């Protein structure tokens, strides 16, 4: 998963994982969250999710949360929130510019 550091653009999967972890979740719940929110458009395989969780943990954007019995849960860090908020600002700016040109009525 390559997130472009320079422009600040996140991959869709990264952004969704960050969003899903505003509330602590274990792996399966992250996968379900993404599938539900995108109505099945984006389906993440368990192997790819595992890799993404490890990468984001290394970057300290997310971290393990407590020990819920045996299943491991994760939660977004304050740094991760900063990243997600920055991405939201970038996307808003982009859609504002696009709407100004194309028209805002596109649902």
């Amino acid at each position: 998963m390559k997130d472009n550091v320079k422009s600040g653009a996140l991959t869709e999967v990264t952004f969704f994982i960050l969003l899903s972890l505003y509330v602590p979740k274990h792996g399966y719940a992250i996968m379900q969250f993404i599938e539900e929110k995108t109505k099945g458009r984006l389906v993440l395989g368990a192997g790819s999710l595992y890799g993404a969780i490890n990468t984001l943990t290394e970057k300290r954007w997310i971290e393990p949360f407590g020990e819920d019995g045996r299943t491991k849960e994760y939660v977004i860090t304050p740094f991760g929130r900063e990243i997600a908020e920055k991405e939201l600002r970038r996307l808003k700016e982009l859609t504002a510019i696009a709407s100004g040109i194309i028209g805002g009525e596109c649902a």
Partner: protein
Amino acid sequence: MSLKKKRFFAGFMGAQAKWLNSMSKKGYRLIKTGKLQYEFDECEPGKYVYTVEYVGDKSLEESDRYKAFLEDMGYRVFYKNINLDYSIYKATWRPFAEKGGRISTTRSTYNKELLIIEKENDGKPFELHTEKDDKIDYYRRLSYPWYFMIFLFLIFAIIAWPFLPSVIGLAAAALLCAVPIIINAIKIHKIKKENQLEE
């Protein structure tokens, strides 16, 4: 009633998954794996789907962690050997292994190079790797042992240099090892092409 079958798929992971899926369609669910043996219980035909993944380049700790993660996802996971042993005394040669562990007796994913993963059939394809970079990374990892084999054969060839027949034999072996590398490279190329962003 349980059913026992003997099969050996070596590095042909796709074939192994295909066979397990066809067994499931016939109403047999995997319950145990041995070196050559697979044990099945009867089940509702087609209730489970299987996929096979290579983890032989990971440390045992890392692949155990991955296995636990997959089990948390609700899958059933089995370890499986990729090699048969070619052991002389206590040293074992394992072409599919992590760096530094190819000739060894150390604690590693020895005889646990593959994971067989089972999920309940929900009608969707069973893909563990869905992201472009992750897929590419996986196929690259699959090629590493073969690069190492080619390297070994080349060294042997240098040692055997004056003796032409063995040099030819070693060169042929090295060429054979290039086949999986080429297959993986084609797969990587396809993934890159499919996932190109429109510019």
